[in-house]
Structure formats: structure tokens, C-alpha cells
């Protein structure tokens, strides 16, 4: 189980949602949303296993 390493990314600009690992999160913050190109901050990510 590696769920604690996973994040849900929701792009504030295009609404795209993806589950990503930490390396992917860092790449998205550095390069922008892969789908639409908009800038992304760490606030766009939340841990997958967050209780409701």
C-alpha cells in the first residue's frame, strides 16, 4: 500500500483531476499543468487518503 504517497491533483484552471505521486507533484508545480499549461501550486494537491 503506497496510498500515503499519492496525491489527488485538481488543476484550478482546467479542472483536470489526476492521482499523482510526489515526483509527479513536483514536476507539475515546476512545469505547470500538463493538460492546460497553467501554473500550479502545492495547494492544487491533497492527500488521497484524507478522511472525508
Amino acid at each position, binding site marked *: 500500500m503506497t496510498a500515503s504517497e499519492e496525491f489527488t491533483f485538481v488543476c484550478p*484552471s482546467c479542472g483536470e483531476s489526476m492521482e499523482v505521486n510526489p515526483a*509527479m507533484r513536483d*514536476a507539475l508545480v*515546476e512545469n*505547470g499543468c500538463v493538460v*492546460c*499549461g497553467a501554473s500550479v501550486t502545492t495547494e492544487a494537491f491533497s492527500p488521497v487518503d484524507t478522511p472525508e
Partner: protein
Amino acid sequence: MALEKQTEMTQSDTDALLGRHETGVLSLARDDDPYAIPISYGYDADDRTFYLRLVSTPESEKREFLSSNPDARLVVYEEDEPTYKSVVVTGTLTEISRDEMTVEHVEQYGEAKRPLFEIWGEAKPDLDIKLYELRADTISGRHIELSERHD
């Protein structure tokens, strides 16, 4: 305007041109129907691969063309009188699905910063953005010097 000189561009010239632009026109063919769309891209010269963003609205005919990995032709050009340069890329288009996205893809798409939303005046969530990889079979560039200038 008369053509004075038309020359083939070298590979390093075409790579440089493709590297300094990030938008082009993609033409797709299905049977005898041509279809052309504006796209933004990032170019990896080492792999001769383009990373494309395509936008379609739900009812657009583009989606039909894209549903069958068509042969594609990408045209990127620049005009700086009296010089006109154009690069034509042919290759195969493959969709990159969201669950096979890698860090490398994210980095490659980071090169294609031009927001497509400027081209499409619609709200972002209403647009269907798809990511494609275009592996080039051929890349050819032409450099044309026009003989007459009117300035």
C-alpha cells in the same frame, strides 16, 4: 512577388525554428477529408517528437478525426520579409492517456506554455483538451527569399 531563391533548410535550422515556436497548424487526413487545426506544441529535437495539446468542444468534428490515430502533418512557419521559412513534419499521432502520464511528459509539456485558451474563447472546463505525441517520420524545411520588397 517573384520567387528568387528557395533552399532546403538544414536539420539544425529546422530544429532551431521548431524550438523557437510553440504553435502550428496540424492537418489530419481521413479518407479524402482533410482537417486542419491550430495547436500548441513542445518539441524534443533529440527524439524528433512533438508533444501536442489539442482542444475540442464536445460536438466538434475534430474528435472524429482524432479517434483513429491518423497520419498527421504539422506545419510551422515564420515570415520575416523578405524571408519565409516553413517546416513540414509528417508522422503518426498517438494519444497520451491521463494514466500513462509521466514526469517526462510533464516536463515536455512545460515547454509548450502558450495557453490554448487564448485561441479558444470558451471557459476552460468546457473544453476537452487532449494530449498527443507526434513522432516525426520526416521533417523538411524550406527557406524562401523573396526578390521584391515593398517597404
